[in-house]
């Protein structure tokens, strides 16, 4: 097995940072879709000019009096928060690496000719 010297911080950043984003977008997205929500957002009807108009949106933007037709399995803002947390983990990891660079780096050099 190739030893690529991932330390615990690398593994935590990969697992938690990427894990949160993959959980929020593809995993929760798949569960939302197969439970019948074609959109990640709330679908609601609201009366406009005497006619019922169907729209999609997130909780705070849904007008009072609107009738919720379909609610996704997971609130969109919950999923967005998980994405944000994942990105924060990546950002913290980047800052940690920037300030903790060591000399114990294994370097490999590959020369690839442009034309063979």
């Amino acid at each position, binding site marked *: 097995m190739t030893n690529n*010297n991932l330390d615990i911080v690398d593994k935590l950043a*990969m697992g938690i940072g990427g894990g949160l984003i993959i959980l929020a*977008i*593809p995993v929760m997205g798949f569960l939302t879709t197969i439970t019948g929500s*074609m959109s990640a957002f709330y679908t609601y009807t609201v009366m406009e000019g005497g006619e019922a108009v169907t729209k999609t949106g997130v909780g705070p933007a849904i007008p009072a009096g609107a009738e919720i037709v379909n609610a996704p399995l997971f609130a969109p803002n919950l999923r967005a928060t998980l994405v944000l947390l994942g990105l924060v983990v990546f950002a913290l990891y980047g800052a940690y690496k920037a300030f903790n660079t060591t000399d114990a780096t294994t*370097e490999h050099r590959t020369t*690839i000719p442009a034309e063979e």
Partner: protein
Amino acid sequence: MSTQHVDTNVLGTDVSLSFDKPWAAYWMFFIRVLTGWWMMHAGLTKIMENGLMMPASGVTWFMQDQTSILYPLMDAFSGSLLPIVQFMIPVGEFLVGLGVILGCLTRLAAFNGAILAAFFYFGNHAWGHGLWTGELAGMLLFITIAIFGAGRIWGVDQILEKLRFVQQRPWMRYLMG
């Protein structure tokens, strides 16, 4: 940390890349799963709503958009060939997304994903969403996945490429990777 340096020459200029090997592999997997889900979700929702064939009304407006620079090509498919488009959009999106997520026939899937994204990009009515759109970003991501052969990272292609059947047919590796 394990750093990989790549020295090469691009169009007469010596260049040197330097990146962390495990993070590069991990990030290609990450891009693969998220980009694949983008396309798979588009196909899955269409299939769940309308089955394997999109309604003709759902594609004719797109095929007959005279503001698109691909109008002559798309218009040619808006007549008797329209059922091909009605089938290929939902099923193509779903299979491209599934293939890219699973890393199965990754280059074939990513190439077709880029083609689909290109049609959606150039079908941007009168460039109402601008010249830089999510479809252009998606197309670039699919091309990146194909160039780097991202399916070898926790993907089915990692297994397929070890099969004798594939190793005896080197051209097949252009479909995988």
